[in-house]
């Protein structure tokens, strides 16, 4: 394989950003030079060819070796490593559960341990892109199967019988003809001496024999600790001699400190030191923004000390960023032709001859991740060694960046992954861990850097801001014959490369160029947009604005033609087929198109399932309305029906949500339900309130009073989740993110049904009160 042509060797979402400008991952690795890899075991396999997914193309690929992931103790305890980060999806339980299933371990005798950041040893650890189950279902099964076979071989040797006569069953190996049994613990020492079976030809369990997979009966491993306060998040790490730090960062991204006066801060009881923190020039990738740190004996004193600092900043070039003016710029750009990124037929000509053109221009503002745990990290740097404890989605990337920032070898950096108090993409960016590392290096003691909520909102890697403009041309029978979609938004690539002003291919592939409708004339365009703040990935990324625009437009077409929303949607999806968009380098979430094509039969099926289970067309009370939307993202198919109620004063409530998801073969339906329930609430939050705005280059929102999120009293009364049973060969697909995109457009379509008002700009705010 020629890695130069394979941008997949770059980390995750960055991988389609111009290679020469990304210094984050070693270009050496991008060239396929693997001399730096430390292989944990000589026979370890690290191949991509065995998988139907893109797992092998991720940085450091896949490791399949039971000796890396599984340990069996003489007392029978089976320890399984979780190498992905737990931020609420349940992955810390799901992946080890797959291993336990395949090796016939009894889950009650399994202990899960969190792997530290070491991709040479564990393979890729980036917990983002809704990839963990999709990429690791098969490798984890193979690891479990290998461990089972090693245990079986050890037993067969002990009994001097052919291995084919023994079988592992629920934590013991049995020889059925003689009735002999040996527990896993009794076989542990011998099994460790067995050679690891080749991955090719490994016999996996028949799925009819599954005890855990697909059942949803196993609770998350941290459940008891979470309910008793024992669960350890990043902020909960305490080391002897540790100091507490908060940092005053430049209020404008890319700004610099001009001068500061620490005197008043140093008089605050408990404050011990005030010092400058190194910042990196814009665009700063994941490097710290710089500023002034206040070091204290506890966080409360550090915050009070920071409040007393006198600071003068040079705001720099981004000081002119103004959200009201910028929206106008985006709108103007969307009204003119832009870079054509998908073209089929001649949409411009067809729009001119269409009997009717329906136009929708949609605006979606920046969003903050606002995970409940603000960024936080502990670092202990001694000489040329560093140990980090942090809630990071990307432990391998954090390790690389810490090493690079401190100028020490990666082997000298240990990254301990705590539980994450929410992530949503924010904690893929390790700036907070780098700050802690720099401060610990300077002070020579362990340091915890705690971000406040204000810090989190002011210095996030924000979800982009976008204008999506769609023009749909209809013939005289109301059939859509032309579709022109212009999507204009600052790109995530701008965080890595100065001047990047067009969407990266992974952004184009999230709901723009992969649009699945059966229309003869299609044009997708991406006009330029400059970035004036750090743009990052937020749960489901560009799918949020694209699904919003496309699925709102379906509602607009239904209204323009006087037809039912669902029937309009199915007519646009068209015949069951594999869509082959005329797009150069269709991203497809990094997955091979053969395994994960855009399959309109599956898209239609979730629409039909949600319509049936969600009782589409049911009578609703006056002031209520139903809306529907469907979207494919992270190679899963999801359809949502929202029932909304809007009272005379414009107050909005959501009595019921139904969502159907086809995520292929799945591990834990109970956690799928929890992800979808949560996605409805995150969707409602962004629809009703979500907006981060800038004035004079500064974020205007400060805390949860002006960056509001949905609370219990306004959350949907009920969200019903309907999971499509997988076919025997359907590969697994994403769950963590795909629930978000269809919610807001389904809500907009419901609001239109209830009130006749079409909301095209988010957040809803007071628009219904007018």
């Amino acid at each position, binding site marked *: 394989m020629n890695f130069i042509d394979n941008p997949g060797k770059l980390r995750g979402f960055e991988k389609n950003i111009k290679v020469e400008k990304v210094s984050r991952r070693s270009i050496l690795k991008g060239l396929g030079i693997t001399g730096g890899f430390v292989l944990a075991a000589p026979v370890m396999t690290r191949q991509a060819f065995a998988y139907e997914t893109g797992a092998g193309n991720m940085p450091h690929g896949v490791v399949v070796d039971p000796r890396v992931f599984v340990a069996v103790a003489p007392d029978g305890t089976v320890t399984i490593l979780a190498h992905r980060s*737990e*931020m*609420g999806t*349940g992955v810390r339980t799901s992946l080890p559960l797959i291993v336990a299933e395949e090796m016939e371990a009894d889950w009650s005798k399994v202990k899960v341990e969190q792997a530290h950041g070491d991709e040479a040893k564990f393979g890729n650890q980036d917990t983002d892109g809704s990839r963990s189950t999709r990429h690791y279902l098969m490798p984890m099964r193979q690891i479990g199967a290998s461990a089972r076979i090693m245990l079986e071989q050890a037993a067969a040797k002990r009994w001097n019988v052919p291995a084919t006569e023994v079988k592992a069953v629920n934590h013991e190996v049995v020889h059925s003809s003689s009735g002999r049994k040996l527990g896993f613990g009794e076989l542990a020492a011998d099994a460790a001496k067995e050679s690891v079976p080749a991955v090719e030809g490994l016999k996996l369990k028949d799925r009819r024999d599954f005890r855990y997979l697909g059942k949803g009966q196993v*609770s*998350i491993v941290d*459940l*008891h600790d*979470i*309910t*008793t*306060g*024992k*669960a*350890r998040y990043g*902020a*909960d790490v*305490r080391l002897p001699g540790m100091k*507490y730090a908060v940092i005053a960062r430049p209020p404008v991204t890319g700004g610099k400190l001009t001068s500061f006066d620490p005197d008043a801060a140093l008089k*605050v*009881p*408990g404050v011990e030191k005030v010092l400058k923190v190194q910042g990196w020039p814009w665009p700063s990738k994941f490097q710290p923004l710089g500023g002034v740190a206040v070091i204290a*004996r*506890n*966080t*409360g*004193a550090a*915050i*009070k000390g920071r409040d007393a600092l006198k600071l003068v900043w040079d705001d720099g070039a981004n000081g002119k960023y103004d959200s009201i003016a910028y929206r106008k710029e985006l709108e103007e750009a969307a009204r003119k032709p832009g870079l054509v990124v998908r073209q089929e037929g001649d949409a411009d000509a067809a729009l001119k001859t269409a009997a009717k053109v329906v136009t929708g221009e949609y605006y979606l503002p920046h969003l903050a991740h*606002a*995970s*409940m*745990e*603000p960024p936080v990290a502990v670092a202990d740097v001694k000489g040329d060694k560093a140990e980090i404890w942090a809630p990071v989605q990307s432990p391998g990337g954090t390790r690389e960046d810490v090493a690079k920032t401190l100028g020490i070898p990666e082997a000298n950096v240990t990254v301990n992954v705590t*539980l*994450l*108090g*929410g992530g949503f993409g924010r904690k893929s960016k390790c700036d907070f861990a780098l700050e802690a590392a720099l401060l610990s290096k300077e002070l020579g003691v362990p340091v915890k850097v*705690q971000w406040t*909520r*204000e810090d989190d909102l002011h210095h996030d890697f924000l979800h982009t801001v976008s204008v999506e403009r769609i023009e749909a041309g209809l013939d005289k029978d109301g059939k859509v014959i032309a579709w022109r979609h212009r999507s204009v938004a600052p790109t995530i690539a701008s965080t890595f490369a100065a001047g990047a002003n067009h969407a990266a291919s992974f952004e184009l592939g999230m709901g723009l160029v992969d649009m699945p409708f059966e229309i003869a004339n299609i044009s997708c365009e991406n006009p330029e947009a400059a970035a004036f703040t750090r743009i990052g990935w937020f749960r489901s990324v560009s799918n949020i604005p694209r699904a919003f625009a496309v699925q709102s437009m379906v509602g607009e077409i239904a209204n323009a033609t006087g037809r039912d929303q669902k029937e309009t949607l199915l007519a646009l999806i068209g015949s069951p087929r594999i869509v082959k968009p005329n797009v150069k380098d269709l991203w497809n979430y990094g997955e091979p198109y053969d395994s994960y094509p855009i399959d309109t039969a599956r898209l239609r099926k979730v629409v039909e399932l949600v319509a049936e289970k969600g009782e589409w067309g049911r009578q609703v009370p006056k002031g209520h309305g139903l809306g529907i939307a469907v979207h494919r993202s992270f190679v899963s198919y999801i359809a949502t029906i929202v029932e909304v109620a809007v009272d005379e004063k414009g107050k909005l409530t959501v009595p019921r949500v139904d969502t159907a998801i086809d995520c292929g073969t799945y591990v834990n339906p*109970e956690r799928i339900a*929890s*992800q979808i*329930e*949560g996605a*409805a*609430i*995150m969707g409602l939050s962004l629809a009703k309130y979500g907006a981060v705005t800038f004035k004079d280059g500064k974020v205007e929102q400060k*805390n*949860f*009073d002006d960056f509001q*999120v*949905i*609370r*219990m*009293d306004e*959350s949907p009364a*009920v*969200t019903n989740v309907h999971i499509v049973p997988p076919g025997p060969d359907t590969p697994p697909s994403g769950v963590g993110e795909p629930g978000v995109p269809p919610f807001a457009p389904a809500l907009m379509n419901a609001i239109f049904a209830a009130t006749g008002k079409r909301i095209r700009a988010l957040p809803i705010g007071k628009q219904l009160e007018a």
Partner: protein
Amino acid sequence: MIKVKINGQEQSWDGDPDLPLLWFLRDEAGLTGTKFGCGQALCGACTVIVDKEAVRSCITSINDVAGREVTTIEGLHPSGDHPVQKAWRQVNVPQCGFCQAGQIMQAAALLMDNPKPSHDQIREAMSGNICRCGCYQRIENAVHLASTGV
């Protein structure tokens, strides 16, 4: 010297009397079950029970609780089997879990005050506690379950 009883144990503090109780608990007393989410009493992640009332420890100073009894998630029940905790596990409430200690303390305080709350009363009483993962449906069900006996 400020004295306060935390989970039944006498603790003392001779530093800044304005120090928020949250940071005393977390950084000085090592009780990290109580979480920091906003610092402005907007999210409820830091909720503890003072005497019999749920309070936001991020805006309550250590001086405010002098001579009073503070209960944190660590002290809610010796083996973690308070009816609210048991209900939480039965319903599989948490996703990331970060806000859950605050949610549980708020729910425990609600049930002390109103042992059989209606669904509307649950939604109202729990609305000061944000869950960004969006576990509200399960929180509501768990509080209801706890009130009817687990």
